[in-house]
């Protein structure tokens, strides 16, 4: 193999040779440069392959002497990975910047080449002074590249950069020379052996070296200059700085950290944490895309510093974790910077223009999800491993800091993405595609998926992940150009087949949920046939959600579970955000989901701690602060079930979603949270669990959620929001049921799970279909539609009777079980709240059916048609389910009872034929239904006998104070009908939760707004920041 020293030969030789290329032959120069970078890449790449295949790392000596007497370089596995990465991104970046470099001339091309070469040496060198020299090369080259495409801003940024790096390198030099004075060597390994940190002056020298490297990484808050060059320079250069330079500098830090000794680990981690959190918080206020990316880069480097600081804790996993995060950052950030250069929009709000070319949106989404750590990207697996290990070793505050910082990052990245997906883009000029610019972006995006896949294969838990659903998603994504009919059929067949293949392997508990997910999924997909055209982007994301859902069910280990959970979140986010006015709700949905996911992550980490396994069964025996662990898991799952306090995303998200998406996210998706809660509660040990306060609190939360959800539903004018609030309430019942931790409670809970799936799917589908016909969500704009759509009316009528719990329909089963459970458990007050909530539910249900279907038909609806047949098919299938459940409840409740009895054997229902007994009473579902139906039929018959030939009267044939009203708008009482109730209960409708979250948000944004003023833009103050940073670290680390 060729000695890596020839990177220098190639790089420098190429750069010097460029001097001979005639000024006119601009292409020749650029091509020569790309060839040189490619050659360096091939060289390092061949080393990478060789080292992976077991060759040993090579020391490169110069001048024919051994270190420490001469400078040596090292090509080990890490070095080969990183140099290859640098050269790879250098090549792509060179291609991206092709035109700019060409136009700037040979000199600029030389600078770019030397920049890449310098980074290679920085990674490989083992001599600290040599490191200093090549760092200078890199920073001078950077100062040159900043002004590649000149503007006043870039020159200013470049000057500030030079000022700051000048000071930093001076400090570094001072540290180096004193290190030499104390140890007599400049070799990093020699310095490591000399342990200069032990001396008083030596420790200061070490501090100066370490701090200057940390400052080179643009640590918060002495990093205003860094942000300026990200913003001021060409986006292609920003990509280089963020991907290549940061990668190399990070490795330098890791080299020097070994030299500094393990006592520095803590400080590096601490500075990293401050940087990660601080930078991400300040970014909240940022609206300039490139500067935003700068903040994010700095944050990510902070995270990487934390990982480095915990290398002793992470042990052999350190490279896996660090590379996972590093490479996600490397690809994604390069991609985003490049996109910024293509889109050419400064204000993130104007990124809506990216939607004009949908595949760019896909690229942007890929990068953003990779940055935040969603599957299937490497950062997901790395973050998982990191959190698991940190929790395992009890470093909880660190985990909290990491997750908080990540959360903030998610806020601004998703806000940006939200603008891209939903912002106004009418008046923004479209951008042009240049092939040399799109190529690198495409390559890094693909690389993210590929590296993600291979990262997952690295650990046993990750290798167990079933990728088939994801491949199916990918396939349907490729087929996205096909018409709806074909894609829908493929999707339905795919899901049905998949369900058929996996259902025998599932236990009964999982089968119940999987059936809801898959059968429900297929039924809601059928409604998709009603759509025309290609419906771009719908099927990949819908299937992504189902892929996540089924992965949750199938999960054998916690990693798989979390993987599925995040996939499901991502898919549902895209589904929700498809709605017309759903942007703000999509954002809040995502933020709550991400927050919830982090709670889960911590909880799962605590489960891992002390058990050392990822098997799903660890949830059943958490030993490390179990109260917290179970609590966090439950909180995580509650974000998905939209418990009070975590619910503010739901009404908007479900209400504004498309007609067939609302049932997916409401009837189906919410059950994923329930499934999680069920697993957690099982894990807590069922009846005699040792954590009585958790279910108790959960029970109250459920009851209050039920009450507030229902009450809010009453005051909605928007039909879909009404149903959305209703879902919050219904999920409150479910949570309360499971919280009771008794057989009856759980059976009630399960009964509700099944029922809510059935009737909420019916209601959302029907209302959604009606909305498609009448083109409004506002109930007061509808009315009298029973005349135009009797089938829809019937469906809603059955749906609301089932929901309200009025016998004989299936909803009563849940109610009956509930009150028996309540009495058994002794949770009377909660029970009373539930009952009251039921009464309130009645109001909104009546309102739903009355204001839409009854009352006065509006003039503009006189010719609307019955809802689409494609909606009616799933609706009536579900109704059949409700009817069967209603008439033969034992068919459903007995199997559910068997499932529940696995964990709650006591207090089961006893069955005598169709009659269920508890110790408090009994209920004969079939008999009751028969009795009522019989009575109903008899009475109907009597009426029919005595009312022969009743003729239908006209709409306005009503007595109205002696006059006949003529306008349906004024006669249809629909708007604000529950004013009386509002006057009595307005106190309970104050959106305290929303206010609270707004306060939190305002607080963070205000803080960011104030703190970021330290970045005054004055280069001088940046120097002061740097000096202060050094002083503060000195006093903190070494002390007075």
């Amino acid at each position: 193999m060729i000695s890596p020293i020839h990177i220098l030969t190639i790089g420098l030789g190429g750069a010097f040779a460029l001097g001979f290329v005639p000024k006119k032959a601009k292409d020749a120069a650029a091509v020569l440069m790309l060839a040189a970078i490619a050659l360096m890449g091939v060289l390092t790449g061949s080393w990478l392959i060789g080292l992976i295949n077991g060759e040993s790392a090579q020391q490169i000596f110069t001048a024919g002497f051994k270190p420490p007497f001469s400078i040596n370089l090292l090509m080990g596995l890490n070095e080969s990975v990183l140099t290859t990465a640098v050269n790879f991104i250098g090549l792509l970046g060179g291609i991206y910047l092709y035109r700019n470099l060409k136009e700037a001339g040979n000199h600029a091309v030389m600078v770019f080449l030397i920049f890449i070469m310098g980074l290679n040496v920085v990674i490989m060198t083992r001599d600290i002074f040599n490191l200093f020299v090549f760092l200078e090369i890199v920073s001078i080259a950077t100062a040159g590249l900043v002004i590649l495409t000149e503007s006043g801003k870039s020159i200013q940024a470049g000057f500030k950069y030079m000022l700051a790096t000048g000071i930093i390198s001076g400090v570094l030099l001072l540290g180096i020379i004193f290190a030499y004075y104390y140890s007599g060597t400049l070799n990093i390994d020699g310095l490591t052996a000399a342990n200069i940190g032990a001396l008083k002056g030596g420790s200061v020298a070490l501090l100066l070296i370490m701090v200057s490297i940390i400052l080179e990484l643009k640590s918060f808050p002495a990093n205003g200059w860094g942000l300026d060059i990200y913003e001021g320079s060409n986006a292609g250069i920003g990509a280089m700085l963020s991907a290549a330079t940061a990668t190399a500098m990070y490795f330098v830090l890791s080299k020097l950290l070994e030299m500094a000794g393990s006592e520095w680990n803590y400080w590096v981690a601490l500075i990293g944490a401050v940087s990660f959190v601080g930078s991400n918080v300040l970014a909240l206020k940022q609206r300039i895309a490139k500067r935003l990316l700068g903040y994010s880069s700095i944050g990510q480097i902070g995270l990487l510093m934390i990982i480095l600081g915990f290398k002793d804790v992470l042990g052999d996993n350190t490279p896996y974790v660090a590379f996972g995060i590093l490479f996600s950052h490397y690809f994604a950030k390069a991609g985003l910077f490049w996109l910024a250069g293509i889109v050419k929009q400064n204000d993130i709000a104007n990124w809506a223009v990216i939607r004009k070319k949908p595949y760019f949106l896909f690229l942007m989404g890929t990068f953003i999800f990779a940055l935040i750590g969603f599957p299937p990207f490497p950062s997901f697996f790395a973050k998982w491993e990191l959190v698991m290990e940190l929790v395992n070793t009890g470093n909880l505050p660190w985990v909290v800091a990491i997750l908080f910082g990540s959360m903030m990052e998610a806020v601004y990245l998703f806000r940006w993405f939200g603008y891209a997906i939903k912002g106004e883009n009418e008046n923004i000029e479209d951008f042009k595609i240049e092939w040399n610019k799109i190529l690198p972006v495409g390559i890094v995006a693909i690389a993210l998926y590929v590296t993600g896949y291979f990262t997952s294969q690295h650990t046993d838990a990750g290798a167990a992940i079933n990728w088939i659903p994801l491949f199916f998603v990918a396939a349907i994504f490729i087929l996205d150009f096909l018409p709806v009919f074909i894609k829908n059929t493929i999707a339905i067949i795919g899901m049905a087949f998949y369900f058929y293949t996996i259902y025998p392997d599932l236990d009964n508990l999982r089968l119940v949920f999987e059936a809801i997910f898959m059968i429900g999924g297929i039924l809601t997909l059928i409604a998709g046939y009603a759509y025309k055209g290609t419906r771009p982007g719908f099927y990949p994301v819908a299937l992504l959600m189902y892929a996540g859902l089924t992965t949750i069910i199938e999960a054998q280990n916690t990693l798989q579970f979390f993987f599925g959970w995040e996939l499901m979140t991502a898919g549902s986010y895209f589904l929700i955000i498809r709605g017309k006015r759903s942007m703000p709700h999509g954002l809040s949905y995502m933020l709550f989901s991400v927050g919830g996911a982090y709670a889960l992550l911590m909880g799962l980490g605590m489960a891992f701690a002390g058990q050392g396994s990822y098997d799903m069964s660890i949830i059943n025996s958490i030993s490390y602060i179990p109260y917290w662990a179970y609590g966090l898991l439950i909180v995580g799952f509650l974000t998905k079930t939209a418990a009070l306090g975590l619910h503010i995303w739901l009404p908007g998200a479900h209400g504004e979603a498309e007609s067939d998406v609302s049932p997916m996210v409401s009837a189906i998706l919410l059950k994923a949270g329930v499934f999680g809660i069920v697993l957690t509660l099982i894990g807590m040990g069922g009846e005699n669990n040792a954590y009585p306060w958790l279910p108790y609190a959960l029970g109250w939360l459920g009851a209050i959620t039920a009450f507030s959800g229902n009450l809010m539903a009453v005051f909605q004018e928007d039909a879909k929001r009404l149903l959305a609030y209703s879902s919050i309430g219904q999920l409150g019942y479910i949570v309360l049921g499971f919280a009771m931790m008794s057989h009856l409670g759980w059976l009630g809970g399960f009964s509700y799970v099944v029922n809510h799936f059935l009737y909420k799917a019916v209601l959302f589908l029907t209302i959604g279909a009606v909305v498609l016909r009448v083109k409004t969500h506002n109930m007061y704009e509808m009315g009298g539609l029973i005349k135009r759509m009797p089938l829809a009316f019937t469906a809603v009528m059955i749906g609301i009777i089932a929901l309200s719990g009025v016998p004989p329909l299936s909803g009563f089963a849940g109610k009956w079980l509930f009150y028996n459970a309540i009495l058994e458990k002794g949770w009377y007050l909660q029970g009373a709240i539930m009952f009251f909530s039921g009464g309130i539910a009645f109001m909104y249900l009546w309102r739903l059916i009355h204001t839409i279907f009854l009352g006065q038909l509006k003039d503009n609806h006189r010719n609307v048609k019955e809802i689409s047949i494609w909606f009616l098919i799933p609706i009536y299938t579900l109704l059949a389910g409700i009817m069967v459940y209603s008439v033969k409840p034992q068919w459903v409740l007995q199997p559910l009872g068997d499932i529940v009895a696995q964990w709650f054997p006591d207090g089961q229902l006893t069955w005598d034929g169709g009659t269920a007994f508890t110790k408090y009473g009994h209920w004969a579902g079939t008999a009751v239904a028969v009795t009522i139906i019989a009575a109903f039929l008899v009475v109907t018959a009597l009426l029919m006998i005595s009312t022969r030939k009743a003729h239908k009267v006209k709409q306005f044939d009503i007595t109205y104070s002696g006059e006949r009203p003529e306008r349906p708008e004024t006669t249809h009482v629909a708007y604000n009908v529950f004013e009386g109730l509002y006057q009595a209960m307005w106190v309970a409708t104050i959106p305290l939760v929303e206010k609270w979250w707004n306060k939190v948000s305002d607080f963070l944004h205000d803080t960011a707004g104030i703190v970021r003023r330290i970045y005054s833009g004055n280069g001088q103050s940046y120097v002061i920041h740097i000096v202060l940073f050094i002083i503060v670290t000195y006093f903190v680390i070494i002390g007075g």
Partner: protein
Amino acid sequence: MTIAKLGYTLLGLFIVWNWGFLMGAIFRKIGARVSGRIGIPFYQPWINFFKSVGVRTTITHGVMYYLGPVFRLTGGIGLLFFMPLIYTGDPNGMWTNFSFEGDLILILYFQLFGMLGMAMGAGEGGHPYSAMGIARGLAQHAAVELPLTLAILSIAIQYDTFSMYKIVEAQQGGFQNWVLFTNPFAAGAIILAMLGAMGHSPFNLVKAPNEILIGPATEYEGTYLGFMQSAGSILHVMEAVLFMNLVFGGATSWPELIVKTFLIYFWSVFVGMVFPRYKIEQSITWFFKVPLVLGVLAIIVFSF
């Protein structure tokens, strides 16, 4: 057995139906006398009923409109089916109807059946006052339910059962065993909540549109109205029976039932004579005050 039981049940239904008419007439009369009028003859309800049924029904606004009274009447009849009328010492004995020992939850929820159907039926008529009345009714109903449920739960805790038959059984053997005395808080809450459930003044804003002779009752004529009058009479009695069973020891014979339901009904009429009508928000807040406190106390007392 079943045939015989069906016979008894239908007989019970007939008695209740008539007693409801008679009781209604008596209280109309009392009301008239209190306000210095002569009032109707005691047989007026029957006249009304037969006249309504006898008139040819000519109009309909649609299917739901048509089925509204059916729902209503089915609700009334069903309530009677699911509630034991008279305690005979045998859970499946005569006059216990098809109550399956009278599961309280079933009864509480089935009450809503007629209400719901009626609401939908009247809704299809398209009369604005129907909607207003129903909206008010539902709001008030929910407010009434809260103290009522608390009290009923308290009684259920007290006797450790949801079976109405068992609750009645436990109150046998003298009035000192009545819930009224054994669980005064619950009883208090029920007695107050009852006022709302009966729907007399001051809680009759729901029906207020009646006074100006429009709303559901005028929308429906002929047989529809007859059905609704029947349903009204049955429901009135059955509500009273519910409270009688819960608080006042049930009834061991028809005369006892008639006396007790009369007194229960009288209580609500008496209050109605004395107090003027509440606005809907006033009535809701009223139920959240004393009745709610009593209900919570009833729960607290029995949950330890």
